[in-house]
């Protein structure tokens, strides 16, 4: 395990963040797309079923040109491994030594992968696809029997965002999600700073969390938070999911819609503008650098649910903001957690299945630990996401009934 961070030497310059090599062909981005969701895929030829590696346009066995990305068995045997001690690449130069090797996959191909420290040639290995600090998919060979702790080494830390010993801002302690996420992060070993808006109204504290005044709709409040915490946060979790029932015509005015846009779009933008630059500048700071920004979003950001029409529209704006932040904040990982109806007061009349805030919190901690950036939590969110991936137009029509 990586020991807790030491206090910084204030006379030393903070190391500036660098990105690992990130050029990929459009085809090779299939690995990135899978890694983003924590899946493992390779191209498989529709004609001869040959599993392909590296990614390519034409089947290496039969020249077939229909190569779909499919889940394939990810186990294999480590053929050879080498420890790289010198690299010309600026990112890897700072992270030497680094192990790489070749794995003969049971599925067919032999692949080049990053290799976890304990593996030796001849060992059985499990390949995973992870996002690196550039946000690109890479392959990593891990031991078959591995625990979370046994994998916690400097290489895996580059590919994951474990909240252990990191300082995390959770934006909205008034929201049941914020309360649950704060508790889950504390249990995962994080130091939690929990924001409370309208501090003049009664609120519930979370034991062990540092409660602060924070209202994302108030520019001055966000500025004060950034001044106090900007340089000492490693993860931000935006839990202010503001969802209210009501269609566009049923509402009849913009009052609630404006509040929704403030909560989903303008507020998080304020926070990103205030905290983002400091967070990004500390993305290579020590053993526990700044690493992640988590947004909790309604799955109806993908396709509007007209009975929650204004909320869906504000969530679409939030999703778009999040996509832009992914580019701007790099190498900070922006994690989007999509969720369907929550088991909260605003979904009282909505039938099950609904997502408990604790289940959402567990999923967020897992996504951080696993280095995933796109998560759908609960049956409804997973179903909507699957239908959206299948055909967005069909889903739009289905939801518009």
């Amino acid at each position, binding site marked *: 395990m990586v020991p807790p961070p030491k206090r910084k030497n204030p006379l030393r310059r903070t190391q500036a963040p660098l990105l690992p090599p990130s050029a990929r062909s459009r085809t090779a981005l299939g690995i990135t797309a899978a890694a983003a969701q924590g899946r493992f895929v390779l191209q498989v030829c529709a004609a001869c079923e040959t599993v392909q590696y590296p990614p390519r346009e034409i089947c290496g066995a039969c020249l077939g040109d229909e190569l779909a990305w499919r889940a394939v068995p990810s186990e294999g045997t480590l053929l050879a491994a080498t420890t790289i001690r010198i690299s010309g690449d600026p990112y890897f130069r700072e992270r030497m030594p680094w192990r790489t090797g070749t794995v003969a996959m049971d599925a067919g191909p032999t692949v080049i992968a990053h290799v976890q420290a304990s593996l030796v040639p001849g060992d059985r290995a499990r390949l995973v696809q992870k996002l690196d600090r550039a946000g690109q998919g890479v392959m990593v060979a891990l031991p078959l029997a591995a625990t979370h702790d046994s994998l916690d080494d400097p290489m895996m830390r580059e590919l994951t965002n474990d909240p252990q010993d990191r300082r995390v801002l959770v934006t909205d302690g008034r929201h049941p999600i914020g309360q649950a996420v704060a508790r889950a992060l504390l249990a995962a070993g994080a130091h939690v700073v929990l924001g409370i808006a*309208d*501090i*003049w*109204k*009664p609120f519930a504290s979370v034991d062990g969390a540092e409660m602060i*005044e924070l*209202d994302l*709709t*108030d*520019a*001055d*409040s966000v500025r004060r938070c950034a001044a106090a915490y900007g340089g000492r946060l490693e993860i931000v979790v935006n839990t202010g999911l503001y969802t209210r029932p009501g269609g566009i015509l049923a509402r009849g*005015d913009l*009052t*609630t819609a404006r*509040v929704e846009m403030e909560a989903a779009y303008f507020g998080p933008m304020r926070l990103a503008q205030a905290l983002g630059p400091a967070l990004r500048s500390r993305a290579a700071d020590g053993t526990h650098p700044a690493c992640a920004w988590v947004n909790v979003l309604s799955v109806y950001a993908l396709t509007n649910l007209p009975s929650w029409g204004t909320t869906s529209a504000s969530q679409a704006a939030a999703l778009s903001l999040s996509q832009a932040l992914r580019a701007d904040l790099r190498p900070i990982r922006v994690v989007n957690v999509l969720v369907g109806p929550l088991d909260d007061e605003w979904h009282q009349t909505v039938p099950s299945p609904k997502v408990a805030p604790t289940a959402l919190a567990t999923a967020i901690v897992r996504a951080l630990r696993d280095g995933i950036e796109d998560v759908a939590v609960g049956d409804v969110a997973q179903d909507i996401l699957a239908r959206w991936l299948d055909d967005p137009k069909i889903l739009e029509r289905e939801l518009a009934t």
Partner: protein
Amino acid sequence: MSSLADFAADLASGSITVVDLTQTLSADFPTITLPPEFGQCAPFRLEEISRYDSRGPAWYWNNFSCGEHTGTHYDAPIHWVSGKDFPNNTVDTIPASKFIAPAVVIDCSKETAGNHDFVLTRAVLETWESRHGHIPAGGWVLLRTDWSKRSGAAYANMREDGAHTPGPDPEAVRFLVEERDVLGFGTETIGTDAGQAHLFTPPYPAHFYMHGKGRYGLQCLCNLDLLPATGAVIVSPPLKIQGGSGSPLRVLALVMA
């Protein structure tokens, strides 16, 4: 004209002093809170346009947003359903002459210190009159509670069953409107009514009866402890919002030194 010149001279010499009865408009000042399923009054918010920077090199300015009933604010009769049909019942049509008027101050600060749910009754008003004389027609009645010296949670004073702040009962408001013909009623708390005024019959009597007779309201006032029981003159022109039900405003009191 000589009296206006005297007035100006008294202001300049300091024999008339100006007391600011206004709370600072800021994002963290408590705003009236309704049950969440109702529409809500927006709190005060400030967004910088430029500050001697690339967005405007030599000037500093902001956009602000808020509700008509945010911060120290004025209530026009149209604010309440009981006052909806009066002529000139909006902030833009109320005669400007109504914006300068004398005021009496009912000091209940000792009572409210020990009782957050203190109720201003007709009996309290009559006791006050026995010492200070009749409450004059056409003037403001300001309820001093020293509530403005509180801040944050203590100011809003919200509990499980709602806010607990002082205010008048229905009989007291009817007495002021029907028997004393006052111009309006002003308080230091978030509303002219008590925090628990929804339990009165009718609910929110200060709103119901004051606006029901075309009278006005002032709330979130401060510095009432600097005013005499009688003799102050209040200057309180709201923003001229077309059809507006109220507005944040600067409230000044003129007091003989």
